[in-house]
């Protein structure tokens, strides 16, 4: 009985070293893919639901500014906060108020990021651009998806 106990103990000691080589292999492969998908742009954007970005050949990296998003149903989001829909008349006034407040807080930054669904008609884009330029934004950055 005593002998059996000692044998068990020795057996356990021999197998205590875990072989992590395979785990390391997996992690290195993961690292390669993550490094490949790394984007140096400081633009961090949470796309709202029902919004498909159009594909583009442009390769200019974006920067962080106030973001206006318009989805398929023409709902308007400013920095991911829903403010209404373009089918309602008051939304444009509300949008202008929010943009004006932001412009007053950061008077040097005159840049606005515009994120539209690919099916958005130009009439909506025009309204957003006009509202933004009226409250002082002079540069528009249309956010698009890179195609390969």
């Amino acid at each position, binding site marked *: 009985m005593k002998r059996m106990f000692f044998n068990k103990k020795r057996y356990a000691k021999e197998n205590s*070293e875990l072989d*992590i*080589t395979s*785990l*390391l292999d997996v*992690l*290195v492969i*993961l*690292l390669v893919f*993550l*490094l490949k*998908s*790394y*984007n140096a*742009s400081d*633009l*961090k*954007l949470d*796309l709202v639901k029902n919004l498909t*970005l*159009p*594909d*583009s*050949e*442009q*390769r*200019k*990296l*974006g*920067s962080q500014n106030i973001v206006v998003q318009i989805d398929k149903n023409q709902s308007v989001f400013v920095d991911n906060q829903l403010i209404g829909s373009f089918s309602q008349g008051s939304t444009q006034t509300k949008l202008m108020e929010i943009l004006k407040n932001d412009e007053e807080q950061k008077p040097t930054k005159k840049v606005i*990021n515009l994120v*539209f*669904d*690919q*099916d*958005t*008609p*130009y*009439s909506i*884009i*025009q309204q957003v*651009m*006009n509202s933004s*330029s009226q409250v002082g*934004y*002079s*540069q*528009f*950055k*249309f*956010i*698009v*998806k*890179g195609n390969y």
Partner: protein
Amino acid sequence: MKKIKKKTSKLNLIPILDAIFIFIFFLLMSAQFIDMYEIGTDKPITSTLSNNDNKKDPLNLTIKMNKTAISIFLGMTPKLYKSYSYQELNEYRTDLQKIKAKHPKETSAILKPTTNVSYKKIVNVIDYTKEQSINGRKVALFEQVIFNTEL
């Protein structure tokens, strides 16, 4: 003869594993799985239809878009250069290259879409207006695209 037993020395991989774990954590935090880029444009030009009394006649490249066609207009009193369907965008780009060769200093184009044109089509036309591809290398065509709002 004494047998020399070869000692198999195992490499300690634990520190490198720790480092990779930390690296993966930061990369996952900063990873963006959709590549997003920007197309820059300035404040839209607002013009009235009656103020075309400039003495000089610059290029004034104007691209008018409707749901089915794109038209290139040139000059302050806009003259139609050519119209294209959305399937003829390569031909459109070739003609822009010809215009650019005649006016190498010109960098801007004015875009005038009608209200029912979709954003996807606008982005597509901007792509073809801004850049040309020469031997797989991208070269600027009319880099500055400005929207026009007619009152």
